[in-house]
């Protein structure tokens, strides 16, 4: 875990979260703050992605809209007053969908955690009819990636290495920076398509 706040980053070319991306589709993130134009706010936190003390700092930055804020914490409990605690991502998504059914144009959604987590919340919010401009995301914690295979269209979760065997078709995929907001995943392309079996050394680059 390299981060203390979501602005700090592991400063390598691949992993920097705030520097201008080498690839246009690669998302960048800012720290979370409430959108004062909203009237109803939903904050979704991946507990394991936060450093000690970060949860209360987050609560503090949302005090201005505390009366209109609902918080969902995913994973372990956190010192966030009034939060609904959900055991895992699946339960968190159900809670988020329930909260967003009947959402209005004044709804705002914030998510903080690993990229697979925050983009899962993003997808749920879009499905509930929210616009990108009603959603704010902040990457914190692990750099692990969700990888979408361009060959079989299956996704492989929790990828921390530069090359990964696809969970769907078994091909060795090079994990690219090319990101799909619709799928909330990075693109994986077969690395040994030219010379079958010639696979470079696998390294952990997204710890």
């Amino acid at each position: 875990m390299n981060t203390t706040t979501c602005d700090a980053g592991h400063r390598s070319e691949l992993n920097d979260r705030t520097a201008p991306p080498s690839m246009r589709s690669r998302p960048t993130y800012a720290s979370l703050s409430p959108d004062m134009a909203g009237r109803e706010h939903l904050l979704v936190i991946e507990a394991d992605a936060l450093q000690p003390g970060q949860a209360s700092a987050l609560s503090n930055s949302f005090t201005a809209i505390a009366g209109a804020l609902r918080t969902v914490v995913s994973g372990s409990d956190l010192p966030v007053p009034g939060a609904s605690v959900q055991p895992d991502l699946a339960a968190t998504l159900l809670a988020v969908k329930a909260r967003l059914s009947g959402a209005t144009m004044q709804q705002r959604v914030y998510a903080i955690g690993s990229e697979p987590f925050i983009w899962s919340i993003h997808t749920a919010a879009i499905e509930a009819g929210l616009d990108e401009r009603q959603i704010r995301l902040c990457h914190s914690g692990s750099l692990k990636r969700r990888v979408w295979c361009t060959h079989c269209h299956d996704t492989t979760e929790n990828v921390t290495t530069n090359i990964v065997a696809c969970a769907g078709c078994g091909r060795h995929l090079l994990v690219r920076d090319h990101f799909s907001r619709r799928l909330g995943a990075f693109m994986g392309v077969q690395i040994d398509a030219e010379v079958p079996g010639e696979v470079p050394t696998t390294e952990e680059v997204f710890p």
Partner: protein
Amino acid sequence: MTGDQLKLRVAAIQDIAPTLRLVRFENADAGPLPPSATGAHLQVVLQAPDKQIRNAYSLISKPGSRDVYEIIVRRVPASRGGSAYIHEQLKTGDLLTTSWPGNLFAPQRSARKHIMIAGGIGITPFLSYVADFANKGIDYELHLCCREEEKDSFAPWLPEPDKVFMHWDADGHRLDIPALLLRQPANTHLYVCGPDFLTDDVLEAAEAGGWPDNHVHCERFGSALSGGEAFRAVLQRSGKQIEVGEHESLLEAIEREGVEVPCLCRGGACGVCLTSVLDGEPQHRDHYLSKTERASGKHIMPCVSRARGGGLLVLDL
């Protein structure tokens, strides 16, 4: 299809209220008319005795209709000649030149619900919307702010009266815009067409009410923008100097001199008539140029914008 022209015949004229006239056009040439989409408008060339007037009118005929086009024209007291000509001189059988239908105000197809707010004759683009939405079972609300005596004038074009709400200037009947905007489900799109004060109120309320700006759409009345202080313009390439009167737009003055400028909306929205400014200071009134582009003063939209303080403009035309 900017620049392509149609020859239309006035097939029928019907006064639907003291100041509202319906005009139905059919193709004067053989064959069906070009299809028009929901929210489209038609630029009509009117040959008044002393000058040529071009006005853009929303098509209220059913979207996709290829046998007739229909428009509704309000007679306005401060007419530049267009509405007066249509109300006083146009008659059945007349032949007119128009543009092909253009569309700068199409509904957003991904919306879950549509809220339309119209001020008076600003209802016209929404008459094609409601025909389309009713046909497809799409959720909408139409709010019309008008004079009380005109609230029933548009009934023939409103297929679902329960989705239409009339507002007028009396206690208990005024539209509470902020309240309306606070109770709309996510992925609602908002449209406004009417006089500037209504459009500005709605845009302000939407911003204050937390609506993402890409969910808010407006079509302004072109005519409200076209007049102002008289000034002089030099058309450099054509070697002409023109006087722009206080009741005409720069574009109209240029056309009067026989210089062609491609144009589409004639309301400062589409950007087609963008013209380079070689000298002089424009007074920008369009909705097309960015703040930076406005500040640079290098371009002007002659359909609505003028010279600042009645000064001289030198244009690359």
